[in-house]
């Protein structure tokens, strides 16, 4: 990696929710802050910034990653997807989003975008998980509102119907 100067802003080019974008950022700027403040994606939620809660999860090249533990400069040349990419071009919610609504898988909704991004990445690798596997995957996220039951049911519903 090239030497980056702490004080100056660096240009980064990457793909964001399917579109080529670029922006300027200091090396110390977190990806979470960059996506929120520079890219105006308020679906990226920040709760702990210690890498524990999972609220800030986005996908980088299809893998679920904590954006609070990633520097913005690290996504140079990569593809970043956030919750804003889930609904289709017409704004219709995805089957996973609809299932979350149906099963009351969210209350305050603060944990939800990160969880949706993790679930999508997980189902790519394991399209037919059982309940234990679903719960195990969800253990990378903290939800303070729901007790998880609704979201487990929502994911099971999607696993069955996809």
């Amino acid at each position, binding site marked *: 990696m090239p030497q980056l100067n702490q004080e100056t802003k660096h240009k980064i080019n990457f793909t964001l929710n399917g579109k080529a974008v670029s922006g300027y950022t200091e090396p110390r700027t977190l990806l979470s802050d960059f996506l929120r403040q520079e890219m105006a994606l308020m679906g990226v939620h920040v709760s702990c910034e210690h890498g524990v*809660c999972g609220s800030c999860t986005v996908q980088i090249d299809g893998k679920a990653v*904590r954006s609070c533990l990633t520097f913005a400069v690290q996504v140079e040349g990569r593809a970043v997807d956030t919750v804003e990419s889930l609904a289709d071009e017409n704004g219709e*919610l995805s089957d996973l989003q609809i299932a979350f609504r149906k099963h009351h898988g969210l209350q305050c909704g603060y944990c939800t975008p990160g969880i949706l991004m993790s679930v999508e990445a997980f189902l790519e690798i394991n399209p037919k998980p059982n309940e234990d596997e679903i719960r195990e995957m969800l253990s990378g996220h903290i939800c303070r509102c729901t007790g998880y039951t609704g979201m487990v049911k929502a994911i099971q519903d999607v696993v069955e119907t996809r």
Partner: protein
Amino acid sequence: MTETSSPLKYLGQPIERIEDATLLRGAAAYTDDIPVPVGTLHAAILRSPHAHAEITSIDVAAAEKQPGVHAVLTGQDIKELTEPFLIVLRVPLDQWSLAVDRVRFVGEAVAVVIADDRYLAEDALDHIEVKYNPIEAIIGTMDAAQEDAVLVHPAAGTNVVSRRDFSYGEPEKAFAEADRIIENTIDYPRNSQTPLEGFVVVANYLPGEESYDILSNFQGPFTVHPVMSKALRCKGSQLRMRSPAYSGGGFGVKQAIFPYVVLMCVASRKVGRPIKWVEDRLEHLTAAIAAPNRVIEAKAAVMNDGKIIGLHFEQWDDYGAYLRPPMPGPLYRQHGIMTGAYDVPNMTIINNLVMTNKTPSGMVRGFGGPQIYYGLERLIHTIAVELGLDPLDVIKKNLIPADAFPYRAAAGALIGSGDYQQALEISENEGKLAELKKHRDDMRAEGKLYGIGYAAVVEPAQSNMGYLSTINTVEERKKAGPKGGNVAIATVNIDPLGTVSVTADSIPQGQGHATVLAQIVADEMGLTPEDIIVNMERDTQRDPWSIATGNYSSRFSSSTVVSAQMAAKRVRAKLADIAAQTLNVPAEDVEFAGGQVFAKGNPENTLRFSRVAGTTHWSPGELPADMAPGITETATWSPPELEPPNDKDQINTSLTYGFVFDICGLEVDKVTGEVRIDKYVTMHDSGNILNPLLADGQVYGAFGWGLGIALSEEFVYSEDGSFLSGTFADYLCPTAPEVPEPQILHMVTPEPFTPLGAKGIGEGNVMSTPVCVANAVSDAIGIRDLQLPLSPSKLMSLIDDDEPAAPKSIADAKPATSKPKSGRGLSGSGQAIVPVPPTEVWDTLLDPVKLAAVIPGCHELDLVGENSYTADISIGVGAVKGRFQAHVKLSDLHPPDSVILGGGMTGPLGSSSGGGRVTLTAVDGGTRVDYDYEVEITGKVAAIGGRMLDGASRVLVDQFFKRLIAQIEGGDANAGDAAGSWWSRLLKFLGAG
């Protein structure tokens, strides 16, 4: 106007939430997402690393010179510009939004930096120099209650700042006549439901109006609005509080934002710019609030058949360093219902309110309930064990009889309805208790530690705004005037095209209130919930509000909905009157359905809803003669049952009282101490259910947190007051594998004291689940004294271990049963080979210039006395970096063989003290350096987690020796700097690298 109603079509149905389409897209604007005024600056707060200390000086000169910094405020600024916060007691417990002269808990705000952005504001914090003179900290609640204890507030003259005795019925007689007196003492820990979204404040001082415009995620109650405006020396109307429609969870906690609202108002006034502050996770866990920890000495006067004839509760509730309004609510919110689900006419209550050097206590879901039921239901279980009875029989023996409702409890609660016996019967049958008991027998026969627990809980909702005045004596209350009631407010409005909009005085935190309001109003108007626009923002300059406004005490389903339905009915009545003219029928024969307004029995004779509504806008002249124009109605409602406390100190603390009965079957793993919840049944009588999908959501959520309380969550302090739970890796919230799905059961006895018949449902399991789990654990392991949370290490230390030897990895892990005396203890030892003879190593260690080059992050090292140095050092542990002042003393010098190093460091992130021995031995190829050290760390660094610290200290020691070798070899000491690799190791540890 005549009131009519359509049959309910949506209310009571599991309607999906109207909020979700926005939330699921990530499009909901939480406070931090809302655009701020041009020129907004950002704040970062410097916090105390000490639990108790005098502030001897604060030097902000260097911080003010940092790039992007506009101002630095300290306690002196705050003292000049604000009044101390009002509290409920007449005791001198002065507190401001920044510490003045003294800090009283780790994390207390000491100074605030205002800068162009948050990164720059945080950078500047490191340049504020605060000198402290530490004082002994008082942490244990019962220690603080001792006569000779160090005082948290010397002016108060005591740490027990309020003590009141209450006696109901004839408790002395009951205790004299009882067959047995059975006691149990509990010590409920500090915890909080810790919403994922922290506090956010944007404050803007408007000089023209001398007013403050605040956008924040404050959740109410607005009883603290006057507290803030008094502090700011402004009129209520000059403090405009706005809250957005979406919040990332509240659970009561976001009430505690108010000191920061005042702080940011002052900062905005001083700097002349809008100021934004966003709390981070470490700040939240350390300094936001906690539910008060509480010691309860509970005694029951019982007959041999298990009948309880009297109760005696003495409580010590720990409010931490300051009494922040509306504290001490948790000590009194349940006061009227201290006898729980039981018919016990005689009771003594003694309430002690204790101050300690911990984070101030505040509102958290359950609000005193988890504490009280932990005391009461553990006592019931203990009675059963001592009398050799089944706990379920003891519960049944004492439940309030089904024919006794409405029932007035000894301390004043008026319970409108219930049938607790039936609730138990349904739970036993549908929860298959007989099978569960058989399963317990089977498991025990296999040698397993299996237990069953129960908990019966009366769940109060909609607080009486006067309950807290019970803390004052009858005479004091007479002087102050009676306090009671709880006002609910909602508005229904219709626009010219017939769109119905609703606002209401709940400030929802994720419960789905907009959906329920839409259901209620849709039913009245003959529309669908999607037709109704609900705006849950609140603005104290534009919307009606009362001190009761906000989201707390489960008031929505018993109160806010009532005012919404009243407003909707009034609008409907008006529309019916208008339509009656055209339809040519009496108003009471006008019906609303499917977007039409029509004559009863003749749906052909109909008008479009929008057309009727439009009349009030387009042609007020066409309205019936005596009708006011426009179509907007605001309804307010306050239930008459919420009377002020009477002269006997009886108080109906809440409007509605639901009932919860839980059964838990669990196994305690003999080898790991882990609790595995095998079965959990939770029965709720919440009166009429407004939306079953959302009601069950509340139960699932409360159950999830209840398990956290029971098994893993605790804010831990060491004896010197260091806070040790500063990350979610230390404060353990349950995740999906730990929270099984409970079996939820419902029954309905409608609440007579609220028109929709609904009781609360959101707090019950927070009260029932912790104690139900504890009762089951007690049943499993046969031990009475259980201290929450029941972590594996704690349980391991309680279980007899004549069991098969644990796997080695587990056997090696020391159970962390005792808390460290001071901060986090770190110790280690090791060896390094340096390729030069001992004398050369020795010379390097004793040469200040060389040593400075060897110590990682050392900027300056001065010799201040014989073998005594001071140094200025930067250290980074993970994301927390800081500059420290170190002093090091070398002693017991045996050149060139061994030396003892002692000393300590202080800085904004905390302090440390400790020492170690270094021994040099000549070996083949150079010198073997053996070292061992023991260090105790306090402050922020201690809070972020032992997991990281151990690794970090090893890295630092490793760096030290690499640099030592490099220095001796004449190379660049920085060559050995492992900072880069440390960072990548941290990332790897956290799963991101």
